[in-house]
């Protein structure tokens, strides 16, 4: 919980530093996703993470989007959807690559949700969206690598 609070704050600071330049990817959401999809996580813990994502998103809305409920709904929905997809995958298929694909899908859904409901569609908004996705690529790769290591440790 402390780690997630710190990551939320770090994301807030990063957004503050890059305000007016680009939107940063939702590292907080990706961290929750990483924790939720770890092999030893129970359904109860995953459910708890859905609500942590929801409240983190609500705080983000109150700080940045001025549309309370938008990011929280997207975050809660995306984590639940990712957990559902992950459970449907056979255990052998839960590889770092599969994790990378799920993370990329979640990040894209999150960014698209913001693009259509929050920003005013324009060339500059589209440019910011593309930059956000490009920044998300190394972040997702790092999380996939961490996921691979955690999976190896769990055998």
């Amino acid at each position, binding site marked *: 919980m402390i780690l997630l609070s710190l990551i939320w704050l770090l994301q807030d600071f990063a957004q503050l530093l890059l305000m007016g330049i680009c939107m940063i990817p939702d590292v907080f959401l990706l961290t929750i996703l990483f924790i939720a999809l770890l092999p030893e996580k129970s359904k*109860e813990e995953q459910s708890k993470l859905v609500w942590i994502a929801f409240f983190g998103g609500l705080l983000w809305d109150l700080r940045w989007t001025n549309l*309370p*409920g*938008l990011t929280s709904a997207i975050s809660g929905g995306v984590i639940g959807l990712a957990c559902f997809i992950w459970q449907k995958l056979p255990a052998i298929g839960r590889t770092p690559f599969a994790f990378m694909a799920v993370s990329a899908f979640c990040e894209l859904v999150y960014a698209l949700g913001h693009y259509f409901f929050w920003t005013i569609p324009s060339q500059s908004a589209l440019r910011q969206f593309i930059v956000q996705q490009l920044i998300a690529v190394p972040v997702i790769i790092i999380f996939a690598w961490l996921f691979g290591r955690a999976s190896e440790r769990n055998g």
Partner: protein
Amino acid sequence: MRILCRESRPWLNSFISVLAGAAILFLSAGTDGVKHGAVELVNGILSYPEKPVLYLRNIIKLSGNWVLERDNLNERVEKLELKNLALEEALQRAGVKSPASKGGYLRAVVTLRYPQEWWQELRIDKGAQEGVREGAAVASEGFLVGRVTRVSAHSSWVELITSSSFLIAAAVDQTRDLGVAAGDGRGHLRLLYIPEERNVRRGMSVSTSLMSDVIPPGLAIGTIIGIDEEKEGYKEMRLSAGAHLTQLYNVDVFMPSSGGAQR
């Protein structure tokens, strides 16, 4: 929530969270006061840990611009000093005493600008505690960018000149014709109510005219870039704002002298 977490599956919690988010979104649309209060509360709490980051951003931005701006500023200061000297000499020749200072400016950092209200308003990190007053003019690089509309203890909201509700008395510097500068909410500025017979042309500069103690007269707004069709005996003109409205990181809030009464 504990019961939900224990008894239900993640997808069900997720579904409920989506519904809850949509409900908050729907309810907040109808309760502006509550939403505004919650936004202010969260922003107020976060303003403390964010302070060092804001200063860091400011330092990065300022150091980046420093070299570029230095020459430009030196040139402007030199010109203004010469102009000031000439005016003082003219006043002395005419036997008029130099007027006392009418106030100064307080430097503030832009802390928030919502994309959906990009041309409407922004928030700065100075408030009532620092002496900011409602209605005060806000400038950037010597050009008007807006005025303060809401003041909290340590932050204020600034309505931009491009806001659709922004109207301000303005004068064409070269002809002294008076009109009203107005925004359209889409990043454009217009000068209204200039009589059609007046010889106002493209390239002429526009500045504020005397209207209150919190907005100084003669503060540059921008330049006339086009004259549209005449309507009911008046010309409508397109203005180009003098300030870089898409690159507002720091602004200067006009602080009237304490002797001046607020109107």
